[in-house]
């Protein structure tokens, strides 16, 4: 589709006012007020991008046009707000501006088509066809963004495309920023997005919330994508500023989804899980960027307000009495967050919750985490028996957290030589530098002269390098 001439304001695509780029075209405004306008536009970019894009897709069904018109609307805001003042509802202003722009461009394209036909002396169209308005009269859909989330996470799209499209359409991250976060060349990411949008058009993937019969599985797919986004900036050793931003956007999207789907306790469960994990982020790595195991973390660094919010959201979700894997994982995270220290942690409860999680979403990684909790509750020997059974089953072959956990339990039992052998095995398999450094330190400890393994240490997050990494991977699979 040709989008007509444009008003000559098209900057380089992907300029983000939020990052202070692409603001060159803005009318120069007097110092402080100009800054305030830029801040307002930047805030709106984060908060409203998805709403604006969703509104234009709902109106036109054209994803590329939606992105371009959203971009236009923000550039327009940079021009107009310094003189006119920041509107009371920036989201509504931006949405209206983008929709008008889209209609203008479609009208112009339609007129050109008519002129072409006339020039070719073909019978003129009976009327200029209005833009396809996708009103399917579905009153159960209160917000275009919910339709957008479900469409981005449609199972007919490959998972990496679902992830990229969700970020691009709903969060305002540019293609370049998304590419950096997932460590692929920008061109690759741009192709991935283009292919996804092509498939939506070619296969007629609908822009809507799925019907009731398939809603549970489609919701699970959306939750999985959001959790994967969260983990982009949370995986041990992987978190640079680009990844941290993706994690922040994941929390924002989970918040939005929980609000848009108030009847779905798993959406609230996912939000609670993210908040409870994120609350510990300041304590998870030391100054060198090395992983700090849970029991060694400085709990005064944990964000208490975030924990309180996460626990409150979780309690309200659990009160609906429809538990699911995210609520159970959030409950496990809440057990840790509630405890003043590793000794005071309710490991019995955590072991039970892992049992519950294994029942709902069976996975050897969950079993491994349960073994760690059992070791803390009943002693390392009990945990080790479970770990050995898992090793014998062979399902976790090649997974570094299996030998790492074995090593830790052996260390706590005082079996230093077998512990060292298991640490070496884990070192071979560990995927990140931070995890290798952690394991190398532990190996040096058990090989060193005379130091006992400190009893009662090396719990869940610690042993496993990061117990939550296990949880993360489980959720990605489920």
């Amino acid at each position, binding site marked *: 589709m040709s989008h007509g001439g444009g008003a000559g304001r098209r900057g380089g695509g992907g300029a983000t006012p939020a990052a202070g780029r692409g603001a060159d075209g803005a009318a120069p405004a007097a110092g402080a007020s100009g800054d305030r306008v830029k801040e307002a536009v930047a805030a709106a970019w984060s908060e409203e991008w998805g709403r604006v894009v969703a509104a234009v897709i709902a109106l036109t069904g054209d994803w590329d046009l939606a992105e371009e018109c959203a971009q236009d609307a923000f550039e327009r805001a940079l021009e107009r707000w310094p003189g006119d003042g920041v509107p009371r509802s920036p989201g509504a202003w931006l949405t209206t501006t983008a929709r008008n722009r889209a209609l203008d461009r479609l009208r112009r394209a339609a007129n050109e088509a008519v002129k072409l036909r006339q020039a070719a002396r073909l019978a003129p169209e009976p009327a200029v066809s209005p833009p396809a308005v996708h009103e399917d009269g579905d009153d159960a859909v209160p917000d275009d963004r919910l339709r957008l989330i479900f469409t981005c996470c449609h199972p*007919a799209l490959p998972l990496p495309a679902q992830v990229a499209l969700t970020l691009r359409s709903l969060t305002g991250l540019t293609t370049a920023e998304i590419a950096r976060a997932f460590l692929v060349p920008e061109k690759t990411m741009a192709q991935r997005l283009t292919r996804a949008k092509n498939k939506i058009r070619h296969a*007629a993937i*609908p822009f809507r919330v799925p*019907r009731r019969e398939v809603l549970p599985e489609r919701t699970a797919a959306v939750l999985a994508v959001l959790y994967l986004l969260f983990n982009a900036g949370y995986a041990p050793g992987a978190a640079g500023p680009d990844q941290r931003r993706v994690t922040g956007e994941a929390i924002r999207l989970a918040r939005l989804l929980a609000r848009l789907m108030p009847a779905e306790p798993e959406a609230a469960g996912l939000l609670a899980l993210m908040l409870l994990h994120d609350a510990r982020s300041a304590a998870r790595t030391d100054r060198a960027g090395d992983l700090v195991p849970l029991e060694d973390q400085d709990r005064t660094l944990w964000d208490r307000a975030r924990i309180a919010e996460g626990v409150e959201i979780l309690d309200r979700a659990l009160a609906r009495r429809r538990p699911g894997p995210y609520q159970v994982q959030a409950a496990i995270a809440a057990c840790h967050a509630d405890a003043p220290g590793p000794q005071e942690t309710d490991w019995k409860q955590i072991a039970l919750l892992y049992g519950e999680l294994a029942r709902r979403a069976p996975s050897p990684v969950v079993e491994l985490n349960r073994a760690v909790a059992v070791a803390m509750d009943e002693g390392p020997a009990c945990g080790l028996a479970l770990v050995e059974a898992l090793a014998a089953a062979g399902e976790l072959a090649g997974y570094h957290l299996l030998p790492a956990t074995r090593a830790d339990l052996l260390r706590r039992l005082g079996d230093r030589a077998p512990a060292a052998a298991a640490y070496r095995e884990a070192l071979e398999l560990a995927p990140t530098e931070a995890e290798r450094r952690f394991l190398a330190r532990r190996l040096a400890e058990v090989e060193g002269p005379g130091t006992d393994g400190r009893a009662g240490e090396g719990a869940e997050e610690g042993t496993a390098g990061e117990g939550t990494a296990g949880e993360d991977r489980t959720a990605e699979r489920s």
Partner: protein
Amino acid sequence: MKYLLLICSEGQGFDASPEEMDAQPWVDEMTARGVRLTGSRTRDAEDATTVRVRDGALLTTDGPYAETKEQMAGFDIIECADLDEAIEVASKHPVARHGMIEVRPFWTE
């Protein structure tokens, strides 16, 4: 929107009874609904012939163009509002429970 449904079985050795594999109720339902335009069962891959023309020369080979475990057992052409409806229609085909259905959108400009 038109879609081609490729009805794929996983070779021989179905556990399914002939009644379970009978697509006629599905054909009747989807035709009555106005969704199914046409379609047919096809003969097995061993009855297939593959035709190529290279440098003007006709090359005829026996069998399907690709040897896979999954064999096309038939096809249907359906007309649906969107992919979600096409998926719903495909999911009701009896072969979906034992083999698989590939849903291909028609090329439109």
